């Protein structure tokens, strides 16, 4: 079973050379720490930077330089700042090639819910609706089950949707799954996790291949 950093490490393998990538808040942010040396990748943060670097050395934080999670960051050589309309022009216009974001629920037809629990939690969608409606390549990073132990991979989402039919791949603490033809397709299992555990933790339709390789991390 993976921890959050393990999920991030596995997702880092999805990133290809030359890609512009948007990482959501939470686990996705950790992906940046696991990009292999030598891979040319630029991170976009939708509040207005391309070429986002690591957190600043203590004492050099700049209140005017943050990421979409409101964290202080740095700018790498070649970075550029821009306004929010330009930022979402990049996203909506599909110039950002890979989006990694968290979810509360994902359905077997690729719907995603991650912005609202009616009557209880209403933080808002931020840029998530633009991202999922636009990106060609959307990977969800999340725990396979919620705190109550219930599956977050469902036949249909019960929470208000963020986007429809948009998620292509889900990476959880238990597995890598692709979404196609209205079902989850098990691709890899996390180290030490059995197929049975994954089956038990997945409520949506799940297609199993003959052999389920373990992730190589």
């Amino acid at each position, binding site marked *: 079973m993976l921890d959050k950093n393990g999920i991030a490490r596995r997702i880092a393998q999805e990133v290809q050379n030359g890609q512009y990538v948007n990482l959501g808040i939470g686990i996705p942010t950790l992906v940046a720490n696991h990009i292999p040396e030598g891979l040319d990748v630029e991170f976009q943060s939708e509040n207005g930077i391309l070429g986002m670097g690591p957190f600043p050395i203590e004492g050099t934080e700049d209140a*005017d330089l943050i990421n979409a999670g409101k964290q202080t960051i740095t700018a790498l050589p070649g970075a550029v700042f821009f306004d929010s309309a330009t930022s979402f022009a990049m996203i909506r216009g599909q110039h950002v090639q890979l989006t990694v974001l968290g979810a509360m629920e994902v359905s077997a037809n690729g719907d995603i819910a991650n912005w609202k629990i009616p009557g209880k939690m209403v933080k808002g969608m931020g840029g998530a609706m633009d991202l999922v409606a636009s990106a060609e390549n959307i990977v969800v990073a999340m725990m396979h089950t919620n705190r109550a132990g219930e599956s977050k991979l469902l036949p249909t989402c019960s929470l208000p949707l963020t986007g429809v039919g948009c998620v292509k791949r889900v990476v959880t603490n238990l597995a890598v799954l692709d979404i196609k033809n209205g079902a989850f397709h098990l691709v890899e299992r996390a180290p030490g996790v059995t197929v049975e555990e994954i089956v038990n933790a997945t409520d949506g339709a799940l297609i199993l291949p003959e052999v389920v390789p373990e992730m190589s991390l």
Partner: protein
Amino acid sequence: MAISKEIKGVDEACKDVKDGMTFMLGGFGLCGIPENCIEELVRLGVKDVTCISNNAGVDNFGLGKLLKKSQIRKMISSYVGENEEFERQMLSGELEVDLIPQGSLAERCRAGGAGIPAFYTPAGYGTEVAAGKEVREFNGKPHILESALTADFAFVKAWKGDTSGNLIYKATSRNFNPMMAMAGKITVAEVEELVPLGSLDPNEIHTPGIFVQRIFQGRSYEKRIEQRTVSQNK
């Protein structure tokens, strides 16, 4: 001679704001927010206002200050976490809230300033956001029709500005400020440094002065950091 927008200070900047008006306020989180104008709006006690702003500040800073005094009737935002008082007012029904995707919010403000009354976007199709909105397919993909946003006043914050209202923002404090500057009937710019006409390189200006009606040098910027994250010195 260039048209001067210089005013004396924040009191003159907020002149003519009235109860029930619609305001736009630049900033993302607490980054790039018009601190001086927000303080003045709190001081003036203007009520029943609609605020268009990506976020709603935190409990004791930024728009949170207006919320705390119940001056806001309606918020139009994309993300309002990090603010318990906001959540309380919203869930209790005291505060009307219109949550819209961040990119649509940015584009709707730009459209308001650019004389584009409406445009199609894929963001929000199939979600609550699309309720009551026209859906149309382009290139086989469904899109929804979004309309322009404008405001009686737009309050923006820039790094440098000149007396004719030309603005330069710093780093990611730019965010929503340029589009909101375009969309205000009266746009008020507060700047960290107000420089004489001709001091800014005309090639490096982010917001042309034509969009700004009032400009002044703000004071005592706190520029609070929401999430102070640091790396260890290797």
